[in-house]
């Protein structure tokens, strides 16, 4: 079959792997809210990064112009994605690299495993990568008898603690220094038993722990921040030098990257390398960035592979309103300003992608009909802070509202003719529209107000509501309704006019 598109819309092919929540957001958020240590660590961290980011962004007189260029570049990439991928492939391959295409997580995992086996290795070093986390590569390799060592300090902490990352930029943001020390003492072979919780000492311990691995590893696995179509170049942005170690020393390098990471030209880096570091860590520039174009003779890995991953991206691209979620450069600015994320942390979102971007990206990749992810678009107060912070101007609130409507539609009966059970929101909306549809009914509802006061107790807050409203009060206290309704007050104070309006 030829690859010419014949105009037949294909069925969406959704993603698999670590994209699905294992429970609905409200339940997960409720549990995480009970973790006060997590909330304290997160609050400190997000506020610190947020302030740094604001300072360095304010330094640039042309920040808005850079954002506009970034947003327009990404929109153009999405419109030309198939053509740019082919151009990238031709250039990367011409310089000695090898490209593999993976429809989904399972296929990507198998490709990586086979490449590792071909290289005769049974262990690999890894530099932090969202794509490999998304496809669950570490878990898969472990089943296959291949050990994968995370080398980013935060990823190492999370991996040693058998935990999951809670933030895309600082995955161990939920642990404080004494927790990290305890993990190292417990899990790091040969660690100094007198290790203190001083961050410099902890970083030193990780250096000693990983040094031998770096210097002897035959195969490394990375993600990529950018792929440049007109030159066939890949780039990784990092701080610690673990990225450079992985990208330079082993004989074989395997990179896994979502198809959306493309940029049309090398020149575009002048925009994106200004937007990304300032938005993510709040630095003028991150300590290290590496770019490589296929194989360079005598310098670095001589066997270089790239796995291009779909895993639901084509499905997200098909959503005309939602496709701009694929513009995301994973800077994490949106989660650092999100009031919901700040309180629940990343685990509550279930997926590899937490926070505001996760609330739209995960359901776009898996399909909103995926039961657990259907609650994610409601995990937001729609305050708009994420949109203001986003360096590529993804209108997250607008996409959230769009996905909510898709969710409600799918509950009414979707294209497949299957009607889902009415969701909580649906029932609540129906009840509200019934009550508000008539003044008389509204008056009746208001009569119930004093009852609400009773449920509230002396501190005037309702802690738990039964049934439909339970989801709302799980993570916030509802102020008790006033003793008198506004309509009631109006009738008494301005009696004559308002009584005529009664239905």
């Amino acid at each position, binding site marked *: 079959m030829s*690859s010419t*598109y014949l105009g037949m819309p*294909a069925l969406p092919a959704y993603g698999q792997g670590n994209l699905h929540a294992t429970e609905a957001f409200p339940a997960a958020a409720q549990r995480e809210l009970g973790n006060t240590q997590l909330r304290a660590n997160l609050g*400190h*961290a997000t506020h610190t990064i947020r302030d740094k980011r604001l300072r360095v962004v304010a330094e640039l007189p*042309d920040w808005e*112009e*850079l954002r*506009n*260029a970034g947003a327009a*570049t990404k*929109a*153009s990439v999405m*419109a030309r*994605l*198939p053509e740019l*991928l082919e151009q990238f492939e031709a250039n990367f391959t011409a310089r000695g690299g090898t490209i593999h*295409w*993976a*429809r989904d997580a399972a296929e990507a995992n198998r490709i990586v495993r086979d490449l590792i086996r071909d290289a005769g290795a049974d262990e690999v070093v890894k530099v932090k990568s969202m794509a490999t986390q998304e496809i669950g590569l570490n878990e898969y390799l472990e089943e296959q008898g291949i050990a994968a060592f995370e080398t*980013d*300090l*935060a990823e190492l902490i999370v991996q040693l603690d058998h935990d999951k990352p809670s933030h895309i930029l*600082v995955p*161990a943001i939920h642990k404080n*220094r004494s927790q990290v020390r305890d993990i190292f003492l417990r899990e790091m072979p040969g660690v100094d038993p007198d290790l203190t919780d001083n961050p410099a000492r902890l*970083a030193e311990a990780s*250096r000693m722990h990983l040094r031998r691995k770096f*210097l002897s590893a035959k195969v490394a696995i990375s993600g990529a921040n950018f792929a440049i179509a007109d030159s*066939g*170049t890949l780039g990784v942005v990092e*701080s*610690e*030098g*673990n990225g*450079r*170690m992985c*990208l330079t*020393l082993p004989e074989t390098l395997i990179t896994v990257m979502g198809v959306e990471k493309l940029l049309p030209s090398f*020149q575009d880096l*002048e*925009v994106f390398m200004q937007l990304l570091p300032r938005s993510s860590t709040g630095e*003028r*520039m*991150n*300590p*290290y*960035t*590496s770019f490589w*174009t296929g194989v*360079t*003779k*005598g*310098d*670095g890995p001589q066997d270089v592979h790239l796995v*291009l991953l*779909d895993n639901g991206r*084509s499905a997200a*691209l098909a959503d*005309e309103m939602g496709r701009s979620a694929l513009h995301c450069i994973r800077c994490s600015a949106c989660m650092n300003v999100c009031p919901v994320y700040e309180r629940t942390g990343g685990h509550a979102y279930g997926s590899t992608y937490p926070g505001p971007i996760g609330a739209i990206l995960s359901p776009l990749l898996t399909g909103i009909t995926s039961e657990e992810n259907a609650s994610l678009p409601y995990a937001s107060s729609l305050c708009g802070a994420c949109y203001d912070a986003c360096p590529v101007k993804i209108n997250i609130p607008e996409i959230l509202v769009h996905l909510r409507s898709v969710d409600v539609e799918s509950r009414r009966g979707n294209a497949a003719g299957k009607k889902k059970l009415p969701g909580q929101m649906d029932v609540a909306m129906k009840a509200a529209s019934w009550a508000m549809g008539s003044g008389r009914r509204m008056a009746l509802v208001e009569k119930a107000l004093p009852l609400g006061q009773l449920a509230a107790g002396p501190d005037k807050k309702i802690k738990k509501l039964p049934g439909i409203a339970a989801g709302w009060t799980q993570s916030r206290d509802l102020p008790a309704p006033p003793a008198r309704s506004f309509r009631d007050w109006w009738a008494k104070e301005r009696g004559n006019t308002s009584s005529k309006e009664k239905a």
Partner: protein
Amino acid sequence: MSARTEILDRLRSALHDAPAAGDIPRNYRHESGKAEDELIELLSDRLVDYKAGVSVVDEAGVPVRVAELLAGAPSYVVPEGLDERWTALAPGRMVDSAEDPLSVAQLDAAGAVVTGSAAAVAETGTIILDGSPDQGRRAISLIPDHHICLVRARDITGVLPEALRRLDATHPLTWISGPSATSDIELERVEGVHGPRTLDVVIIR
């Protein structure tokens, strides 16, 4: 059907509404318009902010400064294309090249490395290595614990777009902004994790 064909077909079909690839507004700064002295000052300021060491010398002062920085290191690495005069006063020189590379163990045992650079960006405090003969293989500026990097004043640009125009994308590029660092534990910045723990930049006017 191959995965490649299938994915490209899916993507084409996802674009059934034929969105337009619009023009990209590039109204951001392309030049800083700063004079050489200002660029040197700005670059120094940014590098110091990253906890890198900075010295500004004239051409004749390079060998002395390099020898001072290397004092105490029993041996150090240089790429084969680095001007020999610059390290003439420092004993313990080991030469690395793609044809005759030092082993990882030798690099690990060396105390320091001296390289040139391809470009620098003053505003962000970034030096860029592109694998040219005076900069060498990527491994040599990574494994030794102390990196001494020589930057010619004429290679310092003000803003990133100026520097990018001087680079060839197909060379292996390493952008360095300060020594290796992590902020992963309570966001407290710690210099020196896996890359060199000390970075000294010598600016040559």
